Each structure stands twice: as C-alpha cells, then as structure tokens.
C-alpha cells in the first residue's frame, strides 16, 4: 500500500521537476548525464567558467579571450546557422579539440563518456536548451580542387565582402576597423591573423574553415556568410585564405590529420 503512494509521489515529482540536472546529451551512441557532468565540471572547468557557468571563474580576469558564458548559449564553434543553439556534438567537439589560441585546452585525455557528461551539464546553464531546438547543421559540400582562378575569385570576394576592413589587406588582422572591434560582451577583440601559422579556433581543416564562414562565430564580430555567398564562392574564399597563411607544412599535415570527435 505504502509503496503505491510513494510511486505516485515519485511520478508527480518527475513530472513537476524540471531541474537542470535532468539534461541529457547525445553524441553518437554516447549518452551524457548531467549529474556526473557536474562533478567533472567542478574538477576541471569551474575555475575559468565559474560556478554558475557565466564565464566569471576566479581565473577569468587574467584570461584573454574570456571564458565562455554558458548562460547566454551563444557559442563560437558550431555547425548550426548563426543565432541557433549548437548541436550536442558541437559542444563535444569543442571540449575535445579545445579552442586554439585561447586558454581552453584540449580535453582529449578525458574519456569520451566524461566529455559527453560535461556537455549534458553545460546545457543546464541556459534555459534556451530547454526552450529551443538547435537548427539543422549546415551542409558542407565536397571541396572542389584549388586553382589559380579559384584563388583569384576568392581574392575578389575578400575585397567585396569587406573581409579586408577587419582582417587587413594581407590578412594580418590589422584592417582599418580592427582596432574598434569588441566581442558581444564589450571586451576588445582582434580579428584573426590569417597570415600567421596559428590554427583556426574551431578546427583547422578546410571543412572547418568552410563551416566557420557559413555559420559565423557567434558572440564575436565574425558574421555568417551563408546569405551572402554560395558554397562555391565560400570554397574560393577558403582557397584564397590558404595563400595568405604562412607556409608551414607541418601545420598543414597536422591539420589534415586532425580527427573529428574521438
């Protein structure tokens, strides 16, 4: 008799309770659990990203760029269009790869289960993950081979799309508008120096670059070019950008060997 009441009570609580610790995440066949993710977050993440996930951990004042504020659910490295939530796999990939040229390391030494648990917990910081669904991932078509014509078209687009105003004529990040740039929190931010050998923040492959141009890096001045450019044109820009980068063979081969989420 008593057990039936408690079953009913449990049922009631399950229905009414909508705590953030009920979040789940799915990456491939892995299912993440937010409660386990919380313990991991407190071990690894809390000092930069803060106990409330707002990017204001103890170390944050000394970091540039600042750690991500999860409460806004605005993320740079996504495969979804600008303004959309990221997919679970986007968050998983960011944790696995880290964010190059920032304080966010690659957390590959954590097990895959640990990383997917962290994704589940992180989603609990913003109500947007419960209210909205992420849009469909952008399609990345096969890359056409590069050619002098493609590079020339890319150079023209780099000019007409006003990339040079921020990134500079040689891609050094010193364009006329560069010094005025701030991120969405008002912190000064510099455009990426395309001429250095530094790996791109969200992954260094050509597909990654195509994706970045299509989705934009939300939270930064870098916009999405999905309305402005057709896929062929975006590949032209990718081919042009390669000619701007410092010649560094080992960087390229390492980039091509970079595996997707493991």
């Amino acid at each position, binding site marked *: 008799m008593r057990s039936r009441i408690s079953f009913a009570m449990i049922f009631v609580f399950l229905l009414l309770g909508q705590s953030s610790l009920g979040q789940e995440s799915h990456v491939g066949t892995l299912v993440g659990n937010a409660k386990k993710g919380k313990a991991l977050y407190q071990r690894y993440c809390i*000092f930069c990203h803060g106990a409330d996930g707002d990017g204001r951990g103890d170390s944050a004042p000394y970091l540039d760029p600042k750690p991500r504020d999860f409460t806004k659910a605005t993320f740079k490295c996504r495969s979804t269009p600008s303004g959309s939530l990221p997919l679970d796999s986007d968050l998983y990939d960011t944790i696995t790869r880290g964010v190059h040229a920032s304080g966010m*390391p690659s957390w590959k030494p*954590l097990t895959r*289960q640990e990383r997917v648990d962290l994704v589940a917990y992180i989603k609990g910081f913003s109500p947007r993950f419960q209210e909205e669904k992420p849009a469909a991932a952008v399609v990345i078509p096969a890359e056409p081979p590069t050619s002098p014509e493609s590079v020339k078209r890319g150079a023209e687009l780099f000019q007409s799309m006003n990339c040079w105003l921020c990134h500079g004529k040689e891609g050094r990040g010193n364009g006329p508008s560069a010094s005025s740039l701030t991120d969405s929190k008002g912190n000064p931010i510099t455009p990426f120096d395309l001429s250095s050998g530094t790996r791109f923040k969200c992954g260094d492959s050509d597909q990654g670059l195509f994706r970045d141009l299509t989705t934009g890096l939300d939270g930064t001045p870098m916009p999405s070019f999905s309305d402005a450019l057709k896929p062929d044109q975006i590949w032209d820009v990718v081919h042009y950008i390669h000619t701007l980068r410092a010649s560094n063979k080992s960087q390229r081969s390492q980039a091509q060997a970079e595996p997707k989420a493991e």
Partner: protein
Amino acid sequence: MGIAAIKRVGTQWLLVATLLAVVRPAYAIPAFARKYGLPCSACHEGWPMLNNFGQTFKDNGYQLGNDRDAPIYQQPAYWPVMFRTTPNWHRESNDRVAVDKVPGQASSGLVETTISPSGFDLSGLDIITAGTLYNNISFFVQPFIGASGGTSIAQTWVRLDNLFGSRWLNVKMGKFELDEMISQERILTLSSTGAAYYNYFFTPPGDSNIFRGIGIPQLGVEVSGHSDNDYTRYSVSVLSSNDGQTGLPAGNSYDVYTNFAQAFEIPRLGLQRVGVYGYFGQSATFFQTTGGQPIPGTGMGNRGFYRAGAYGQWYLGKFDFQTFYMHGYDNVFLGNAVPANQQSQLPAGAAGPTWNGGFVEAHYTYNPRLIGIGRYELIRMSREANPSIRGSAGNLDTWTIGYRWYPIMSPRAGLAWVQEYSRIVNAGTAPISGKDDISNSFLMGLDFDF
C-alpha cells in the same frame, strides 16, 4: 613508556633512515596552474597524484597544446617556481629496538624495547622550477633540501618534445625519475613508514648492489612517446650504472629501463590502464684500487640484475585502485657481496636472490578536495642469496591508511590537511630476539604548495 637513548641502531631503523634520506617529498606544481588558470584538480586526482589530463600535459612537455604554451607567449616576468613543504606532528613507534639495559652503561648489556619519539617536525623543502624553455623544449630542475639542511640535486633534465612534429618521439636527458605511471615522486602519503613504495627501494639483506631501486632518479637518456590522449605510452631509457649519483663514482656500464602502458575506457566505470616495465642493469662488484682504496669510476666485474613487473590503474566511479607487481633478481655475486674475481669466496649453495612484491593502493575521491587512501604492500623473498640467510629475511608487510583534505586548491597555491597512519612489519629483523620488527607511524600536518 619512557623514552630511552638509542645506543645501537637496528636494521629496522637503518631501513627507515635510508628511506627518509632517499624519499623526496612529492610535488605538484602550482606554477603550471598559475600559467593556465586551471585549478590543481584539473591535472591531479588529488595533488600530487596525476590524473590522465595531467599525465598528458606532462608527457607533452608541460604544454597544453592550445597554441598558448611557449614562454614567448608569457610576459618575461613570469618564472615558474614552486615550493612545497609539510610541517607536521608525528609519532613513531618501533618495537624491539636494542637498547642498553641501563641507559648510559654500555656494559649493562642490550635488551629489546619499544621506543616512541613524537613531536612537531618538518619534512624538508622541495623547490622546483619546471616548464618550457621554448616551444617543445621542456625542463625540470629540483634541488633537494633535506629537513636537516643538507642539499643535493634531486632531478635536473631537459627534454626535446614532439620531435619531427610527432608525439611519439621525445628525448630527455639528465637526472630524472624513471618513467613510472605510479610515481614515487607523487605518492599521496607522507609518514615515515608510509611515504615510500618499498618495492621501489628494496635490496635483499646482505646485497652489495649499488642500485637501490626504481624509485631513485637516475642519470641517462630517455626516449618516450605517447598517443594524443595518452592512452598508449612507451619509454626506453639508457642509464649509467651509477644509481643516479653524479661524479661517475661507479663503473662504465649502462642499464636499460623500459615502460609500456595502454589505457582503455570501460563505459560507465572510467579509464583503466595496464602496463609493464623492466629495469635491466649491471652493477660493479669490485673496483681498481690504489693502496687498497677503490678508485671511483673503475667499476669492474659487472654482474646483472633486473626489476620487472606489471601494474594497473583502475578507475571505478569514485574509487580508484593502483596495483603493482615486481619480480626482482640480483646476480649471486651481488647478492652475496662477493667480488666477481673471487668466486671462491661465495658460500656453499649461493644463488642469485629473487623476490616478488607488490602493493594495492585504493583511493576514495569523495570530491577533488577530500581523498581517502589505503594501501597494503608486501615483499616476499623467493630465494635467498645463500642458505645461511633465514628464508624470510627481507620480507615485509606494510599497511597505510589516511586521508587528505584540501581546503585550498586554487591556481595560485594549495593547502592540504593530512592525517595518516602506517605500520610496517619486517620479518625477523629484531636485533636480539630475531622476531618480527614492527614500526608504526602516525602523522598529521599541513602540506602546502605554492
């Protein structure tokens, strides 16, 4: 119980004293935490013990690999220095110590009694500087300052990391701790009987092998490599047979140490790792002499020995276990302390001593700031050097239990409150009665790290 003056030091105290002298306080490196803004718990299960993320960072040459590593990205005023020490209160208790029957009168004869010194104490001071000299060149310098003020160089090495852009090729040179996943340098316990993995320092009784064990930093070159998540690791070291002592005191022979480990995930349980290791070497059994005095560096009559075995690191939710097995062997000349050119001095029935040993260490990580520790370790001689040695000579069992609580664990510094109890039973080493000799150690103190 009255405290009597100690006239003669029994074998058990010698063992303890040796251990205290060779065991370095272990370390965690807040300088790295300060550089990256990460808390101690990111790299350490509970400092100083490393978790897989910290082990990968170390194997990468103290680089996180996010393009922000080289010192050239830091302001020049940044200098990676840390220090660690543990002021503590401890109580030692050792039964069956040989003391004069009447204190002060050597002629009164020796009896066995228990002595129990206790009081406030220091564990010595670790000062470490380590990090990257340049992109993919890492270094480590650790002078060791003993509790009574004596100094030495504990470790000094330079490592060329990620040669040819590959994680599989790293070359380290200098004086360094051997590549061990279960590291003596990062042991979680501090008491005088609990602060060592005895298997890492064991030499059978009566043995003349200069090599004291795999827990001592050695001089040489190490080639190592690892996969990008550190699940697969290997290392091969070539070391001079000097047992880590500088000045070329021994011979011209070389030892080889190798370690191979493979980790894998078990869903829902966590990361598991197994590995095998082996130290294969030779030690000199006699020297050139002048006027009867041995000349350093002229070691001759090299005879072989090895220490080899397997280990595992198991993570099961909040528990983690470390299991270790060693099989040891010393050549018959080393085991009987007889120079190799005087075979006739070997006692009848002499043989190369062999032994087996191992330990199981369990941790319960309630949260990264509270860790409970328990360990059981044993060594069993399987063959003594000669028949006159009692079959159990050298055998030992130890138990250690304790906890560490870390109220402060910030990127800036760390502070731990430690309590620990440890007990060792040395078989048959009581000086007079020949019974088992039992030592206990209780320690509590503040372990801090800046």
